[in-house]
C-alpha cells in the first residue's frame, strides 16, 4: 500500500516539477522511471500513471481556464470546430494521461526484463 502511495506521489510530484523545466514529453520519462523503481503490478502501474497525470493536466488546465484562460480557451475551441472548453480540458487530460501511461508501460516492462535477466 505504501509502495502505491509513494508511486502516486512521486509520479505526480516529479511530473509537475519536471514539466516546468523540460519539454512536455518528460512526462513519459518520469513515468517510466517511477514505474521502474516502484514495484507495482503492470496494469495497475499503467492505470495509476494515466489517472494521475490525466488529473494533473486536466486539473491544471481547468485551473487556468477558471483563473485567466477563459477567453483564449473559447477562441481555441472555435478553431477546433467549436468543441467547447470541456472537451479541450479532456483532450489536455488525455494527452498527458496517455503519455504517462505509455511511459509507465515502458518502465514496468524494463523492470520485468531487468528482474528476469
Amino acid at each position, binding site marked *: 500500500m505504501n509502495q502505491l502511495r509513494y508511486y502516486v506521489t512521486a509520479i505526480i510530484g516529479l511530473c509537475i516539477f519536471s514539466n516546468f523545466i523540460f*519539454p*512536455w*514529453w518528460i512526462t513519459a520519462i518520469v513515468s517510466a522511471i517511477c514505474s521502474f523503481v516502484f514495484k507495482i503490478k503492470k496494469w495497475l502501474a499503467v492505470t495509476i500513471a494515466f489517472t494521475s497525470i490525466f488529473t494533473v493536466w486536466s486539473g*491544471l488546465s481547468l485551473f487556468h481556464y477558471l483563473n485567466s484562460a477563459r477567453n*483564449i480557451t473559447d477562441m481555441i475551441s472555435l*478553431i477546433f470546430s467549436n468543441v467547447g472548453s470541456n472537451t479541450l480540458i479532456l*483532450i489536455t487530460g488525455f*494527452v498527458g494521461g496517455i*503519455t504517462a501511461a505509455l511511459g509507465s508501460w515502458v518502465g514496468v516492462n524494463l523492470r520485468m526484463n531487468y528482474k528476469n535477466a
Partner: protein
Amino acid sequence: MKIIQCIIPVSITIFWCYFLNYPIYLKDQTIPSIGNFFSPFIGFWQNGNEPLDTKVKSIPNTQYEGQVYFDERAVPHIISNSIESAYFIQGYIHAMHRLWQMDFSTRASEGRISEIIGSKALEFDKNKRRKGLAESARRSIEIWKKNTETFTLLEAYSNGINYYINQLDYKSLPIEYKLMNYRPELWSPYKSALYHKAMAEILCGRDQDIEMSNAKQFFGNDFDLLYPEYNKLTDPVIPAGTKWNFQIPKNDSASIITNPKIITIPIDSSPSGLGSNNWAISAIKSSSGNPILCNDPHLSLNLPSIWYEQQIITPELNVYGVSFAGIPGVIIGFNKDIAWGITNAGWDVVDWYKIDWKDDYKTSYIVDGNVENIKFRIEEIKIKNQKSVFDTIKITRWGPIVYEDPQNPKFDLAMHWIIQDEFNLNELLTFVKLNKSKNYKEYREALNNFSYPAQNFAFASGNGDIAITVQGAMPIKSNQQGRFIQSGAEIKNEWKGFLNFSLNPHCLNPERGFISSANQRSTTLDYPNYYNNGDFRDYRGTLINRLISQKNLWTVDDLKNLQFNNYSLIAETALPLFIDNLDTNSLNFDEKAFVGKLESWNKNYDSSSIEATQFDIWFQEFYKLVWDEITQDTLRKYTSLPSEQTTINVMNSDPGIKYFDLIHTEKIENLGDILELSLDSATTKFKKINSKTWGEYKATHIDHIARIPAFGIPFISTSGSKDIINASWKTWGPSWRMVVELTKEGPVAWGVYPGGQDGRPGNKHYMDMINKWQKGEYYDLKYANNESDLNTNCPYKLQFIHK
C-alpha cells in the same frame, strides 16, 4: 520475446511523443504540435496570463532606465530621463503587447508570408517583392543612418523589442506563434522602415490608371463629362481663393496609350474609401476660447488594432497619442503646447508605363528610339515545407514590371511608384521633432522631413494658431500626366522632379476660423502644379466645412458628435431627385410604402435605421442599372465607374442622357424608367433581407490580421457609411477618434479606437474599447504632467533598472 516486450512499448512511446511533439503539415494547413500546444505548463492555457501579474515589476538591463505606469486600459505612461531610454522602453512595451502583429506585418511587407503559412501566400509575396517594399526599406535605412541622433533612437527602440524577444520561451509566445508554429525574428531598424513602406502602400499605393484608361477608351467623348477632375461639390483642403505665388514651367504633355481593347490586368490595391477626417477650430469658433483639434483616421478595422496608445515623458518632451507598433514615437497626438492630426492627401503617385519591347525575349525595350536593357532581380521566396520559388523581376527605367497581362503577352506595364525615388529625407525625424514641437514654426520644420505618403497635417497650438499643411513629395507633372497608362517609349513621360516643400499647399489661421481635411482635393484647379486623383473623396470634406461654418461656437461635445455624424450628403442630393422623377401613380402598394418611409427619413445612416438600408439598396440598384454598360459586362470589371456624385449631377443636369437606357432591352428607357426598375428590385431585395437595419445590413466585421476567425469579431452593428463623416464601412472605419482641447493649463483630450491595447487574443485588453467606439463614446486620455500624477491612478508599474 523479452526484448520484444520492451521494444514494443518503447517504440510506441517514442512514436507517440515524436508525433505529438511536431506540427503536422497538411497541404496548406498546419496542425500545431499537440503536446506543446495542449500542455497546461507551456501550451495555449498559458496565453490567458497577464504580462503584468504584480503591481510593480522590475526589468533589469544593461543600458536604459525608466518607469512605465499602466493605467486601467493598459495605456503605458513612459517616464525616463533620456529620450533614448524612453524609446527603448517603448520598444519593449510595443513588443510586450503587440509582438506578433509587428513581426507578421513586417514579414508581409517583405513578401515572406509563404514562409509562415505556405504556398497559398505565394502570389501575395510575389506582389510585395515586385513592388519593391523591401528594396525601398533598405534604401531608407541608409538615409536614416546619416542622422545619427535619430538612428540611435531607432536602435534603442529595436533594442527594447529585442530585449523582450530574447526573454521569450515557448510558454510566453503569443498564441499565433504557437498555432502557426514559428518564432519571432529579432527586430532591427530595417523592420521599422518596412512598416513605413507598408503604410505607404496603404495610403499612397492606390491609383486608377488602368481603370481610367479603360473608361476613356469606352466612353470616348463623354469621358470628360463623366469623369471630371473637379466636381462642383468639392470644397478643397486649402480654401478656394488662396493665391499661389509660383509657376511651373510648361512641359510637353504626356503621351497616353490608347489601348485597342479593355486591359484586363487585375490590380491589387487598398480598398477605395479608406481615408480620414481632421479639423481644428480656432479660439473664435470655440465656446471655451481654446483651440480644439480633432482627428479620426479611417483605416482597415483589424485585431490587433493598428494603433497603440501611449504617453512618453522625458526632460525634452511630454507627448501623448497613438503610434504604430513598429515605429517609435507618437504619430498622431499632442503635447503640452500643440496637437496634430493626419489624413491622407490622396494624390496619385503611382504611374504605369507600357513597355515597348524590342523583341519577344523581353530582355530589352525601346525608349526614344534607343534600346535599353532590362535589369533582373531574382527573388527567392521560401515556402513552408516546400521548395523555394524563384521569381525573376524585370526592372525598367520606369520601375519594375509588376503585372503581366495573360490575355495580352506583349502588354506589360512597369510601375513608377514614389517609394522608388530617393529623397534623402528622414521621415522618422518628422515625428521625433513633431513630438516636441512647441509652435507653428517648429511644426513646419518637423514636416520638412516627410516625403511620403503625402498627408494633410492639421495643427493647433495653445497660443491660438491653427494650420494645415499638405505635406509630401508632389511629383511635377504635365496636365493629365499619370491619369492614364502612359507610353514607356518616350522619356518625356517621366516625372519632372518634385515640388519644393515650401510650395506645397498649406494654410495658417484662415479667416473662417477653422481648417479641415477629409481626403478631398488639396486645392482648387488653379494650383500651379498638376496632380491627379489617387483616391479623392469629396462628400465628407464638404459636409464638415458646411457644418463647422454654420455654427458660430463649438464645444468639445459638439465636435465629438461631429466625428460621429451619420448624415448623408448623397441621400440629401439624390433622394429628392429620385422622388421627383418617379411616376408615383404606377407604383404598387409595397413600393409606395417604401418611398413613403424614405420621404420622412432624416438621411442619417444610424445603425438602427431601416430607411438607410432602403435608400442604400435603392441607390445601388439604380447605380448598377445606369452604368449597366459596364456593370453587366464582366470584361469591363477593370473599368472605373463614374462616381456617385457624377451620377447625381447627370440626373440633375442631363436627365435625357443616353446612359439611362438599358443596353439589353429594346425599349429606350429614361431616368424615370430606371428609377422605377431599381425601386422594384430594391423593394424585392429589401423584403428578402427581412427589412434589416442599417447596422445589420452593412455587417461590419473586425478581422484578425491573419484572418483567424476565432480571433476576430464576425459582426458588429455600426452607424455610418462610405462618404459619411462617420466613415464606417464593412471592413474599415474610424481607427482612432481623438479630440484635443488646448487649454491654458495644458491639453485635455479624449480618444477611443476599435480594439484594445493588448494585441494578444484572449487578453482582457484585446478588444475592451470596442463597445465605446461602437457607440461613439470616448475615454478621457490621462495626460500626466509628471510622475506624481501617475502614482495614484495606475494599477501596474514596470521599472527598467541597471543590472
